[in-house]
């Protein structure tokens, strides 16, 4: 397993966790606020574990990978960078698309030859199963509500992003799982304009006193 593959995944999880955490305190109602904040924290926890594995291979540490790189060094996919806060339907659409896609790559990672990677994938999957249940129940709820057009429009708009989250091998299965036609995907590698302000805030404390032990 290359450190690069671990970083793709870790950066996705960190940045999505960060975006989801923007809902803390402003979710549609309190129970959901707690649940969604917890999911955000779960994603950041997965990122931490993945960074630790990658860090060993790269001779650095997890914090340095998470916070000390320049924005253009991050490998996260544009899907997770988009600032969707205040649009709950779009946030759920992304959550649902992401978790469905993520399940496929985590399943593949569980079969990785490196037992540490496979073991970590297994632990991540146990939590992601809950995230998926949460995403699916919300997708079902919005589809059955008056917000259906908002949800469907957001899902259509985000679909090329979700498809590009995965490599070629897993794109076919994702189309099948979601019952969607393949489209021209938004590939990993580029970044949206929204990454820079996110990065500034995310690394602010770390950069305020370089090298400090807090």
């Amino acid at each position, binding site marked *: 397993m290359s450190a690069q593959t671990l970083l793709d995944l870790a950066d996705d999880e960190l940045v999505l966790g960060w975006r989801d955490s923007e809902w803390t305190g402003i979710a549609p109602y309190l*129970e959901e606020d707690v649940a969604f904040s*917890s999911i955000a924290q779960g994603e950041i926890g997965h990122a931490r574990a993945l960074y630790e594995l990658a860090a060993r291979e790269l001779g650095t540490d997890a914090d340095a990978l998470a916070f000390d790189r320049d924005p253009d060094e991050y490998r996260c996919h544009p899907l997770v960078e988009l600032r969707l806060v205040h649009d709950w339907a779009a946030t759920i659409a992304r959550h649902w698309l992401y978790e469905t896609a993520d399940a496929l790559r985590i399943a593949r990672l569980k079969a990785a030859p490196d037992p540490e990677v496979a073991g970590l994938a297994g632990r991540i999957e146990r939590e992601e199963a*809950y995230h998926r*249940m*949460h995403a699916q*129940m919300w997708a079902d*709820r919005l589809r059955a509500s008056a917000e259906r057009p908002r949800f469907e429009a957001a899902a259509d708009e985000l679909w090329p992003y979700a498809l590009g989250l995965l490599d070629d091998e897993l794109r076919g299965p994702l189309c099948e799982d979601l019952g969607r036609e393949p489209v021209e995907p938004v590939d990993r590698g580029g970044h949206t304009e929204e990454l820079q302000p996110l990065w500034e805030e995310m690394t602010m404390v770390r950069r305020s006193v370089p090298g400090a032990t807090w």
Partner: protein
Amino acid sequence: MIFEVFRQERDGQPLQHGGSLEAPNREFAEAYAIEFYGRRNESVALWVVPREAVVEIEDPYVADVFDRDYRRVDGYSLKVKLREARERADAARPGG
């Protein structure tokens, strides 16, 4: 909708009221119950009950207007009887 959540901490222990939560339906209530009472491995079983399904007894105290204290176990105090029995036993002992 309000749901009441009961949780069992370990096998063999009784389920105890853990708290309540608000959710739009049963499916959401189950997810939130897992989130609030299960994800830290603090429960081995969870019951989620719509509050409206819980029957509350308004006045659980039934006054004992009739003298039926023989039904109460605290009516049988062994303390005095035991003391008397010990005294009799001591008195009956040779040289006592």
